[in-house]
């Protein structure tokens, strides 16, 4: 079964360039502002969209995304509202792939089967669940595939050649290569090292490989994009939101605009790359 993710990466391949994958936290700083930011991402140049599902204990995230999640939770965000955001987005955009990213517990409490049904109905194409390694594939990964939802696996610098087949086994849509050992928003990755790592992965699989963690500028996005099918930017976008909040921590008139401007800039970076 072909998902929007598969279709989009096929289109990018024929264009001969990497895709820009943008991350925002659902409900940051509140539902309305977040929806406005989300809806404008495709026009700004996002090829795929990751939406963070806020969690109280984001163990793999750095300060930027931790704070984004806290803002969203403070604003009353819930998993149900996040799914409603996707459904609302789908009214005007039926092509841009949406991937929900987060931690397992809120889904587990929502109910795995109910979540997959509702996510599928809302128009979710993929899931990245940080704390569900391949060892736990029976919990959500396999059931997600049955619902036509890609389960996107993370590979990291600690994923050696022995472990890679296990990581690839049930991965679909694309593989997310984490460019550093560390948390989101940390030090910038070295494009040469990342290029070599991605090339090694590509020898073992035909599915697209997107690279994330630490990419903040159009220049970095272009450098990383040379050897990858997609470049993920998250913390940098989330930080723009933080920088454009008013004294009460609310979104101002130019918050969404500022995010979309950075997305356009990043898009020019990845679009300058010819594979």
């Amino acid at each position: 079964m072909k998902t929007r993710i598969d279709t989009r990466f096929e289109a990018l391949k024929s264009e001969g360039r990497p895709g820009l994958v943008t991350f925002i936290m659902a409900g940051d700083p509140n539902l309305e502002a977040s929806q406005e930011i989300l809806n404008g991402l495709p026009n700004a140049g996002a090829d795929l969209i990751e939406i963070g599902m806020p969690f109280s204990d984001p163990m793999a995230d750095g300060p930027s995304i931790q704070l984004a999640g806290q803002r969203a939770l403070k604003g009353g965000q819930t998993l149900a509202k996040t799914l409603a955001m996707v459904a609302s987005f789908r009214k005007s955009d039926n092509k841009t792939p949406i991937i929900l990213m987060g931690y397992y517990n809120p889904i587990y409490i929502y109910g795995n089967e109910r979540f997959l049904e509702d996510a599928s109905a809302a128009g979710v194409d993929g899931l990245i669940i940080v704390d569900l390694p391949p060892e736990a594939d029976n919990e959500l990964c396999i059931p997600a595939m049955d619902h036509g939802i890609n389960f996107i696996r993370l590979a990291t610098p600690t994923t050696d050649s022995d472990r890679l087949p296990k990581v690839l086994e049930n991965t679909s849509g694309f593989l997310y290569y984490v460019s550093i050992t560390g948390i989101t928003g940390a030090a910038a990755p070295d494009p040469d090292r990342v290029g070599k790592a991605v090339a090694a992965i590509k020898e073992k699989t035909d599915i697209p490989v997107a690279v994330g963690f630490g990419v903040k500028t159009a220049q970095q996005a272009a450098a990383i994009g040379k050897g990858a099918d997609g470049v993920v930017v998250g913390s940098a976008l989330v930080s723009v939101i933080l920088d454009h909040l008013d004294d009460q921590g609310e979104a101002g008139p130019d918050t969404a605009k500022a995010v979309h401007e950075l997305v356009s800039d990043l898009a020019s970076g990845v679009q300058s790359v010819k594979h």
Partner: protein
Amino acid sequence: MSKPIEPNSFKTGPDEEGHFGIFGGRYVAETLMPLILELEQAYKGAKADPDFHAEVANLNKHYTGRPSPLYFAESLTAHLGGAKVYFKRDELNHTGSHKINNCLGQILLAKKMGKTRIIAETGAGQHGVAAATVAAKFGLPCVVYMGKTDVERQSPNVFRMKLLGAEIVPVTAGAGTLKDAMNEALRDWVTNVDDTYYLIGTAAGPHPYPELVRDFQSVIGKECKEQMMEAEGRLPDMLVASVGGGSNAIGLFHPFLDDKDVQIVGVEAGGHGLDGDEHCASLSAGKPGVLHGNRTFLLQDDDGQILEGHSISAGLDYPGIGPEHSYLKDTGRVEYVPIMDTEALEAFQLLCRTEGIIPALEPSHALAEVVKRAPKMGKDKIIVMNLCGRGDKDVFTVGKALGVDMETN
């Protein structure tokens, strides 16, 4: 949840994937998976290595001062007027609590694995002190993550850790307590994967931590069994221990799990009461979820967000619980009950006056349960309580709770 069929033995867990029934497991980021698989292999090797066991036993005896005494609390028993109360006195260990048992085992494992840097999380600071202690002894740098709130309310332990050469990182995220410290320790580990050993202090986290922490702590229960046979010629009727993450409790309970006539009671922090959110009774008032690498009972809201909880005792201030306790609750083998802050404070003072022992606030919770149960039991019955920590670190907290001005008194 339906009750599972009672197993032939309660001591067979965890399985190969780290599960105790439906609990436990390995829910960690991919970056950490190779590390915990490596740890699992290293621990398997250590378990089968007589030299490793001999080294642990040697340090337990000569460094920690084990075996800890099994003490008949005669005055307290007379005061309560019922069952005979014994204390397993792990508060007499070097560093003042049971935490050293686990730290010695794990640092030997870290050395065996060639790791050169130790990180740890701590709540009350007892585990932080024990981790800093073994790191100092073995000449390894040690970084301890501690919630900012806990840094403030456990200042004597913070200074102790500094004296021992550890670097203390106050964690401001969330409410600044144990769960936030654990998040930050995991973030450090995921960043420093090559040289760093994460020395988890309680019987929680991803497999194999719940198993190996339990194994290192089980020295408590094993000694207790022998000492009880020597003192009374029979097993006790009841075991009581406090549970935060649950390491002292599982250490006492585990060797007795298949002794069906021994009633086992775990005591959770009831805080200000279970009606609101001001408690840490994850087994009594939480529900199963996934946090910090394992499936277990958690305090959480309807959206699966983890709640902060509250306890007067920093060591019990954790919204989760080791997965083996979740299993033991689910199977009904162990009964878990809450004790309020005020009851723990009463028990704390009672022990000071009747036995001349200043207990930590954590075992004061267990003691409060003993105070409730012993008078209802016959004088021929025996209770063993794990007195898992001494109270020196808590005198300021207790003073404040009792409205005593420490400056003028």
